[in-house]
């Protein structure tokens, strides 16, 4: 075999392999993220807000409609609660899990550790200002009278379904 033929042979292999792996990559996209979902206790988001201390530090599984995704890094998703005006952010480690922006509007089951962050007054004011800007409301600092507590899930895995319906119902 001449050097030219050997080179062409390599290139055919590279080309073939790249297509095989690109195809498998695309086929698997949009389903499981991180460690996926296990048998963690399924909890309604409203229950987490009603009795947060019961679940703090524990692995929980929540399900709901993805209403927002981190637009740059895909490092968090916001899942709508079963109760109006409520949602829960599932934050994952940067680079470990990257949620696709087009997950917005899809159904998700996410798993992770339920955690609490206590903001000081300065952080609360900034947070509220940001929330008001997001919701198109006018920010009035005088309405912020006490420091806020934020609840989040430190996500370890998720299943985001391409279909519009829930793949598995959460405990409500």
């Amino acid at each position, binding site marked *: 075999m001449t050097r030219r033929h050997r*080179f062409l042979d*390599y*290139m055919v*292999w*590279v*080309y073939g392999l*790249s297509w095989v*792996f*690109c195809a*498998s*990559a*695309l086929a*698997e*996209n949009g389903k499981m993220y991180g460690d996926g979902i296990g048998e963690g206790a399924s909890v309604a988001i409203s229950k987490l807000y009603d009795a947060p201390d019961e679940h703090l530090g524990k692995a929980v599984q929540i399900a709901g*409609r993805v*209403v927002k995704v981190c*637009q*740059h*890094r895909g490092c968090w998703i916001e899942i*709508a609660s079963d109760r*109006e*005006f409520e*949602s829960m952010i599932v934050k994952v480690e940067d*680079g470990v899990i*990257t949620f*696709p*922006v*087009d997950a*917005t*509007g899809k159904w998700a089951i996410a798993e992770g550790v339920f955690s609490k962050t206590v903001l000081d007054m300065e952080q609360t004011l900034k947070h509220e200002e940001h929330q008001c800007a*997001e*919701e*198109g*409301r006018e920010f009035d600092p005088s309405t912020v009278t006490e420091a806020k507590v934020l609840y989040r899930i430190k996500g370890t895995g998720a299943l985001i379904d391409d279909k*519009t319906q829930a793949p598995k119902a959460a405990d409500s």
Partner: protein
Amino acid sequence: MGYLCVALTLVYAISGVAVNHVGDWNPSYKIEREERGFEAIEVADRDRMVRQLVERLDLPPEPIDSFRPSPQVVEIFYEGFSVRANATKGEAVIERRAERTFFYELNLLHLNVPKGAWTLIADLYAVMLALLAITGIFVLKGSKGLAGRGKWWIALGFVVPLLGIFFS
């Protein structure tokens, strides 16, 4: 082996630059926003507000779902786009998302989204790169090789990551 690494090196190099600037853009998706005004509607139950917004913004009649983060704000979801409307202000933002051709696939592989078999391929590629780097040191002989100025270039190459760590 060098030839085998060409395609993957280009994948990681191009995607690497794209992902480095993640603070400035989303390297995998195009996000387009369109602002629209409409005649304000009253705050009511969610279904009623969605029906009215669909009509006033001339949206497709059957959204996937909707959500209200606050009484006056309604978010309506469709396949590929969503609408966020402030009912009382009569302001809406329609956000359309689409995968960036070429970059989407490259970033998918670079960020190891597929996991499984791709992890093995990426590991093998990393080993091959290391082998190329090490064997490459001994390719040139004489004054241009390791015994000559080559060692100084290698030393300079080590300084770059060390400076990066030092100043980070």
